[in-house]
């Protein structure tokens, strides 16, 4: 039954599913894990680094990308799709600054990415983007934010979330361990992110990449 309704993206199935979108979400589940934590004065993104081939240059594999000075994102899913979305988001960040004379808010750029993804679920001849994104940053008012988008084009704000392979396990860990004490200071928040990732990743410094943004400070990425 499903196979008759999953060819063209714009067709609903009789029970109300858009199968291409759901298959895109499956593709996301195959990607490497990413976790995001919103602290009081810090936002943290951690990603699992998949092992690379011997001859491959490790530095060219980037899963955490800056969208602007105060916003960055991590993704899970198809790397090529992510590259396209990140490029469009970076252009929109600068375009917004040019027209409105203010940097984007985290919510604005999340909404832009989500709208872009939704357009691709309702267009002839296109397939949805096969990525979920975690977008973090600080707004002008100094409040930290974490948003998650998925291939269907919905977005929500989170205190902490995980996407990609074994995201469910990581999220359960976060639900148990995300307390006011756990994010009380910056180092505790970073530790929480690392512990959450270690639930599903082999331990060892080489397998985790971290990015942090502190209020009024630029993005810092550690490998």
């Amino acid at each position: 039954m499903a196979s008759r309704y999953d060819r063209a993206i714009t067709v609903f199935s009789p029970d109300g599913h858009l199968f291409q979108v759901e298959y895109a979400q499956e593709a996301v589940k195959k990607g490497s894990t990413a976790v995001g934590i919103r602290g009081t004065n810090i936002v943290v993104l951690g990603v699992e680094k998949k092992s690379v081939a011997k001859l491959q240059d490790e530095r060219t594999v980037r899963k955490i990308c800056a969208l602007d000075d105060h916003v960055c994102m991590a993704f899970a899913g198809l790397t090529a799709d992510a590259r396209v979305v990140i490029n469009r988001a970076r252009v929109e960040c600068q375009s917004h600054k040019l027209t409105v004379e203010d940097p984007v808010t985290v919510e604005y750029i999340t909404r832009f990415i989500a709208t872009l993804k939704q357009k691709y679920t309702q267009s002839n001849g296109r397939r949805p983007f096969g990525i979920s994104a975690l977008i973090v940053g600080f707004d002008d008012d100094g409040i930290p934010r974490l948003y998650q988008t998925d291939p269907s084009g919905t977005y929500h704000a989170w205190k902490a979330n995980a996407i990609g392979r074994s995201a469910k396990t990581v999220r359960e860990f976060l639900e148990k361990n995300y307390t006011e004490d756990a994010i009380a200071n910056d180092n505790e928040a970073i530790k929480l992110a690392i512990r959450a990732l270690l639930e599903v990743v082999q331990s060892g410094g080489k397998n985790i990449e971290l990015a942090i943004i502190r209020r009024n400070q630029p993005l810092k990425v550690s490998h």
Partner: protein
Amino acid sequence: MALQDVCEWQALDTQGASPHLPQVGVWAVPRGCDPQTFLQIHGPRLAHGTTTLAFRFRHGVIAAADTRSSCGNYVECPASRKVIPVHQHLLGTTSGTSADCVTWYRVLRRELRLRALREGQLPSVAGAAKLLSVMMSRYRGLDLCVATALCGWDRSGPALFYVYSDGTLLQGNIFSVGSGSPYAYGVLDRGYRYDMSTQEAYTLARRAVAHATHRDAYSGGCVDLFHVRESGWEYVSRNDAWVLYSELQKLPGPEKEGEEEATPDRAGEVGEPSAGPGPAPAPAPAPGDSRMPAEIETL
């Protein structure tokens, strides 16, 4: 992608300017005629006489203007309103062609409202000025004439921008626009301080416009005064320009004002001009208060 090209179907652009904005360069001119030459030969003769000013100080932004609308040699309207509200915290002084100013302010108001609905908050004054400048610069060379100062209060405090229809966008503390602006600039440059009190600012603005109306033929009528504060804009007063100018002539000059501030006990005696025929003399203004006697009619 291929199917989309075949069907020639365009996705809606929800992020850009609204599709109801006028199309660029669409003019009903005879074939073979370029719009600029056409307007020069057949267009209405528009005169751009006015005095408007705006300045930014600690307690907000003051906007003042005369009220004479002239068209060639006659006064079309002696009591027009040249300061247009855009929203609660934004005003624009208008100079140039009145029709152009009013139309573009309506368009600006609509675009700001749309953005407020989309983003949950109004754009800053800088953003509004950028929007207006970009919208008008698409019509460059087609004889639009809008010279306006946007006065507002946003998250960064009091803000003042000058926008001209060729796309000029300037930020500044003092702007005066119109045929009477040289006279107004003279008075403003003499008396402006960022740390003025509100009453001093009102006096300075009224004085500047009154002097301009005295010398510039295209300015006159009344003097409108607006004040944009943190809580929003306020229409302070409308005073007849001639009456205002006469009262100003009776007061001591700016050089003596410094002495008067230092000796408050003499302020009462000097601040009261000779009333002459008319309403009874008002009580003397308190020291350091506005130099405007209370008998001047306010709206």
